[in-house]
């Protein structure tokens, strides 16, 4: 590998100041540092040794934590397709894998390509290094969109998220909003037809069996509650009961929703896979366990409060159901923990997480127009995170002043 590094080093002067391609320096830097960790050494004064971590490794850890969700998503896209047309086999079949890959991988590729291009353009124009943060964003976006989303919309949403969510603020580390959630909110409001209703199953032009509905569990819960004739749990158990649950019980049973054999966005259906991701993030210390735990705690608390109020059937839904419905788990693990847009103080993280959990349930239950509460809850709390931190830090300042007297 030494000779390869020598070749790269030989090209370097061309990209450095005064070189022919100096404008492309950060592209070269990105490429080179991805192949070889740089040979730079610590400065003359101060710390002479540095920790083995860098931002690339940290971001890759998040990507690795998302892999279970991605793989599950691929199988599930295939599985949902085959049960819809009445040809379902076991969940982990080759057919499911092939069909799922055919529809999921293009979305991943387009997301990375579109976002990567924007990153590169901004790196050249704004003269900042290419940010590894996009490794994560590029994978998050495919996991939170339906498998039927047109590829051009994937590209457009990614571009919007990266430019408006991040680059206009100065790039990774400077953004206020979570980039992937910004992309999804953009899709939700700009192209509602492609991201709500029965878009969660990729039919690939084939016809569904009689009695099949591609609605998500959240949509079913909402409808049951509006009709008000039976409890949400009962309604869920009757919905789609032409289909067998791959993991026992009714199609929308708690256990099937927990494990994730249900329709939904590509990567968010399986609460279990999100929890595996959570274990990876928490064990590596890359994601804040305080945020993850407090989002779940907030959702449970709000669910319980609604149980006590009990004004409609949705309010009466047992609180633990909220944890497996929709994208709450995925959002709690991968969206709320984004260190840049989350609260940055440790006390603030608790408040931030609890409020995301509570808001998610409030939006779900009280506002039927937006069944997926986690998206708006995360974006809303992103905006409020600096305010939370402000008060936590002010309290610290006051402690310091009080001590002096």
């Amino acid at each position, binding site marked *: 590998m030494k000779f390869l590094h020598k070749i790269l080093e030989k090209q370097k002067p061309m990209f450095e100041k005064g070189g022919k391609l100096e404008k492309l320096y950060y592209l070269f830097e990105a490429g080179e540092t991805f192949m070889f960790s740089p040979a730079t050494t610590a400065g003359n*004064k101060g710390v002479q040794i540095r920790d083995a971590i860098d931002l690339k490794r940290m971001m890759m850890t998040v990507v690795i934590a998302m892999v279970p969700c991605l793989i599950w998503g691929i199988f599930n896209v295939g599985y949902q397709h085959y049960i819809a047309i009445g040809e379902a086999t076991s969940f982990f079949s080759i057919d499911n894998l092939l069909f799922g890959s055919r529809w999921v991988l293009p979305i991943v590729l387009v997301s990375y390509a579109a976002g990567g291009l924007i990153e590169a353009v901004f790196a050249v124009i704004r003269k900042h290094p290419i940010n590894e943060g996009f490794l994560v964003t590029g994978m998050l976006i495919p996991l939170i969109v339906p498998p039927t989303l047109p590829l051009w919309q994937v590209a457009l949403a990614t571009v919007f998220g990266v430019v408006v969510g991040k680059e206009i603020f100065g790039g990774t580390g400077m953004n206020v909003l979570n980039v992937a959630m910004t992309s999804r909110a953009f899709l939700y409001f700009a192209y509602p037809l492609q991201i709500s209703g029965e878009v969660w199953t990729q039919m690939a032009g084939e016809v569904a069996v009689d009695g099949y509905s591609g609605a998500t569990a959240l949509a079913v819960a909402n409808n049951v509650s509006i009709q008000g004739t039976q409890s949400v749990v009962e309604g869920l158990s009757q919905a789609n009961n032409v289909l067998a649950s791959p993991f026992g019980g009714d199609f929308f049973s708690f256990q099937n929703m927990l494990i994730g054999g249900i329709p939904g966005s590509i990567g968010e259906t399986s609460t279990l896979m999100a929890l595996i991701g959570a274990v990876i993030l928490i064990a*590596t210390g890359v994601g804040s366990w305080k945020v993850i735990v407090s989002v779940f705690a907030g959702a449970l608390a709000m669910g319980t409060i609604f149980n006590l109020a009990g004004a409609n059937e949705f309010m009466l839904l047992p609180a633990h159901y909220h944890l497996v419905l929709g994208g709450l788990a995925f959002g709690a693990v991968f969206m709320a923990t984004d260190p840049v847009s989350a609260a940055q103080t440790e006390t603030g993280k608790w408040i931030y997480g609890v409020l995301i959990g509570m808001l998610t349930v409030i939006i779900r239950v009280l506002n039927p127009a937006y069944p997926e509460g986690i998206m708006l809850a995360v974006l809303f709390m992103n905006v409020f995170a600096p305010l939370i931190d402000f008060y936590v830090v002010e309290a610290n300042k006051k402690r310091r002043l009080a001590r002096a007297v």
Partner: protein
Amino acid sequence: MSKTVKLKKGFDINLAGKAEKTIASTPPSETFAIKPTDFIGMKRPKLFVAEGDTVKAGTPVLYDKMQENVMVCSPVSGEVVEVRRGAKRKLLEIRILADKEIEYETFKTYSGSDLHKISREDAQAQMTKGGVWSNLLQRPFGIVANEADTPKSIFISAFDTHPLSADIAFTLKGEEEAFKAGVEVLKKFTSGKVHLNHDLSGEVSTVFANIEGVENNKISGPHPAGNVGIQIHHLDPIGKGEVVWTITPYGVVQIGKLFLKGIYDASRLVAVAGSEVSKPQYFKTYTGAGINKFIDGNLKNDHVRFISGNVLTGERIEKDGYIGFYDNLLSILPEGDHADFLGWIMPRKEVLSFHRAWGLLSFLNGKNKEYALDTNMNGEPRAFVQTGTFEKVTPMDIYPTYLVKAIMAEDFDNMEALGIYEVIEEDLALCEYVDVSKHDIQEIVREGLELIQNG
């Protein structure tokens, strides 16, 4: 009331090549240097000597125009062989070729029992003239103490938790009387207490035992528990407008000797340590020693970095360089200028990390594993992304990230409110080590301190 402080936050960096408690028999260094850049805050050093002059140990060599009474004295007797200057004639080094037998300037002597009778004015005059005043540093800012101040307390940390640090008790063996005398003199200067802080887990060595009239506090925890800044924060925190002085035990001993023996005694033990040293041990020498005698035939390979001081706060020096005024340690590390194929994702068990992100497996090695770390940056500078890590290695009620950002934004009010008076570089050095985004935190802290000082 003496107190016990138990700290949890922090991080111990366990490096290979700790100095054995033996003293090398190599011939002593021949040249010594005074580096005005060692004295933080020294703005306009003025020289008393020129090349070719002869000096004694204790002869004033230079002073700072801003603090005209405070003399920096020659550590040895001999001839001034070179005055090195840098760009814009900045004074870099005054090199002195030492005599075989050291001759001393003489100052007034006192007996140990008379010391409590001495007035602050007399003590101050002798200390500033006798070259030992510069051992006193003031907080805030970590600069040489101002004679006009009366600090609310004086802090001495009797242990050093930095990587590869010299064993203070070993380096001061036999200096019991001088240490006691030094403390006696220091008591004259503060309206409050003298705090002597010991390692809770270790035994109190004879040097520091039975010192009367001081607060004997016990501190436990990982590095930076041994830093005076951390200790002050927990025992007698500094608010705006308040001043605390700090001094190393070696500095206290030097003061003691100045009064007991009437000489500026700059002799000291220096530890030479690090993974690249063949025989890491102690050398008997004087302040500002040239390092060439320590490294001749004592290195495993020659692609190394020499650091005056420890690996967290020290300064790189050349192989013909000199140990700094405040340092009792020469750390020698392998130079890390190597590029690694896919180095950002490969598993790494041999490079110590505070983090556990993908592939960082050093936490599996256990606490007793000794690391041979090199100087590689292990990554590229980036904007702040990860949060919460600085707080985990800073055992103070301070938000380092916010403080650092306030400094970067030159926001004076927030710098003050967030605690800039309580820190100097060394207290946040671990933040620089663990930083995912590879900022030069210590440099930023110093910029902030200078802004506040001059603003």
